[in-house]
């Protein structure tokens, strides 16, 4: 099934399993969301549980906080990455901090789903990757699935979590297909996965960039290089142990993401892995990502986003040390 369908099934199962789960957002009801991730949910679970919200992002997250205080587990949808900022205050100053401020007595089981990233030819504010802005905030957890199975399971785990989870959905992978086994035993929400084994260099990515890295590994294999690909899955916390184990095997690390490189997730991974693996690294940790510039118009995004050539050029650069 597609990644979008997997998310839909995940929400459906969550709504069936727990009366306290609510779905909220702009157009999530009758329309089923602009990407149809919530398709059919209002029809089956009613307007009381699948709620079309007023067009007010701060209001969506702020009322979700109140609903969580009232014992509910709201799953809210922000329509696009670039529209999350009116809600940023509620997420950062309120949602992230209430558990700590209350000395652990209040819980904030709120999931904020955000379609993110480029590659679909969208207009301004519809293609951004703000994950580092959220990962920087203590109290939030930030995850992003890269395939339909993870989309299904990670969302189910996020809904069950008593912590607020920012759930970034790679919108250009919504239509990718893959098997989903609802009876499987999924790995923990914040554990990284080795999606392709290799010995010469580790590629780390999450969300939309994982597929690109697998393609890069396949292309490099044709040149005789064996690349290991790690799907981080979680940006906060990061499973540094899995990355470290991989780098101790390959001695080289390249981090790939769509977000700007400057102060991005790659910087944190580079710094921590350099600390952990200083004596085993054969090359500095290198990064591939977006430029320090506003996300460009769609006709330019192919030059902004990491592509196969940029990833392979960086791999060559690392291997040349």
């Amino acid at each position, binding site marked *: 099934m597609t990644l979008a369908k997997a998310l839909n099934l995940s929400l459906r199962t969550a709504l069936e399993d727990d009366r306290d789960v609510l779905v909220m957002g702009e157009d999530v009801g009758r329309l089923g969301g602009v990407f149809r991730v919530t398709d059919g949910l209002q029809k089956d679970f009613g307007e009381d549980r699948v709620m079309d919200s007023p067009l007010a992002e*701060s*209001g969506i997250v*702020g009322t979700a906080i109140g609903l969580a205080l009232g014992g509910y587990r709201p799953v809210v949808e922000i329509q696009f990455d670039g529209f999350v900022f009116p809600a940023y205050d509620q997420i950062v100053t*309120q949602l992230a901090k209430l*558990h700590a*401020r*209350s000395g652990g007595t209040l819980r*904030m089981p709120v999931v904020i789903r955000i379609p993110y990233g480029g590659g679909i030819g969208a207009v301004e504010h519809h293609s951004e990757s703000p994950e580092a802005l959220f990962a920087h905030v203590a109290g939030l957890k930030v995850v992003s699935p890269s395939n339909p199975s993870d989309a299904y399971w990670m969302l189910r785990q996020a809904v069950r979590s008593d*912590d607020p989870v920012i759930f970034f959905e790679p919108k250009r992978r919504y239509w990718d297909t893959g098997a989903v086994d609802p009876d499987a035993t999924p790995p923990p929400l914040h554990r990284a996965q080795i999606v392709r084994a290799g010995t010469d260099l580790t590629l780390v990515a999450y969300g939309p960039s994982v597929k690109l890295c697998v393609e890069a590994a396949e292309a490099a294999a044709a040149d005789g290089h064996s690349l290991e690909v790690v799907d981080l899955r979680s940006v906060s916390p990061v499973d540094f142990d899995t990355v470290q184990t991989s780098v101790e095997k390959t001695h080289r690390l390249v981090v790939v993401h769509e977000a700007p490189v400057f102060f991005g997730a790659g910087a944190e991974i580079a710094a921590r892995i350099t600390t952990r693996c200083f004596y085993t690294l054969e090359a500095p940790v290198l990064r591939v990502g977006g430029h320090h510039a506003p996300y460009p118009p769609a006709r330019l995004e192919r030059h902004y986003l990491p592509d196969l050539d940029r990833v392979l050029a960086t791999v060559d650069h690392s291997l040349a040390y």
Partner: protein
Amino acid sequence: MTAPTDHRPPEASATAFTDALNAFTDRPHEPPPLQLIAPDGTLTLPPEQTPGYRPALLRTLYRDMRMSRELDTEATALQRQGELGLWPPLLGQEAAQVGSAHALRPDDYVFPSYREHGVAWCRGVDPVDVVKLYRGVTNGGWDPRETNFHLYTLVVGAHVLHATGYAMSLAKRGSDAVAVAYFGDGASSEGDVAEAFTFAAVHDAPVLFFCQNNQWAISEPVTRQTNSPLHRRARGFGFPGVRVDGNDALAVHAVTRHALDHIRGGGGPFLVEAFTYRMGAHTTSDDPTRYRPPAELEQWRAKDPLARLRTHLTAAGHAAPDFFDEVEQQARELAHRVRHAVRTMPDPERLGVFDHVHAEGHALVDEERRGFEEYERSFTDPERP
């Protein structure tokens, strides 16, 4: 080339149209704030027509206003002596807070901003816990579930949305309890308050919006926040709003009671604007003499909520001097207790910064806690690296 021409005939007299336009654009007549006890202590209606007029209630309102003022006076002094990092005084707003708080039921849930010390007192929050935030030993201070009084919110207006969401949860569960959001005239300019009004209105959420219009948002007068009486905003969102004399505890109590009955009866949200005055500074960090004319303060001092109720209680024969003596004694005891507690309050544990960042743990927080523990141990165990 021809010049543009206007072939319209001269404007005919269109009185009916002008009248129709004016019906939309004319400013409505503004009634005075609702009042039951005048500043001179006299009743505006006969006692039998005055809602909630019971001597016992009046004495309780007076006692709790006096206790709130004492806590406020003591905390202000403690801040001046360096014992508290900051204090937002409630001086002048006792009637708005105590009058409204006494109209609530224990199962109603209150979302305060950061000046609601009088409401906290009425909800049974220990005043020592209230000063903890300003002492700097916690970012919280109490368990909100014990008193249904939420933690203070310093980002103005943010909690008004929380109250609305909580009210939505009450409605979903079939409860007839009400969520109450306290906020000020400054907060009314925040988008979150407008969004809360929208959400509450379209969901018919059982939420009471209680605005204490104390005339000043730090140094900015209410005319910098609005060009329309605040209570009138409610009507635009589709629910009722009332302006009450916020220095008249009985009127505040009666109006809040009315609003709560309306909400509990399924009427949806309600806005009460308590028209009052902050006689002190916004917080101990600002100096109101820089921005406020002294005459204005004097004008409002004449409407002091405590003096007004005391005058009425005495004149009506509802309280003898020994009642006031007893209240004064209780106030002094409270002040001593708060002072002693503040000065002996221990600093929190250093590792507390890592406590409760998440409900389910976070690998990075755990790693940083271990690192900090190692560092701390290095001082007590010099053999360790």
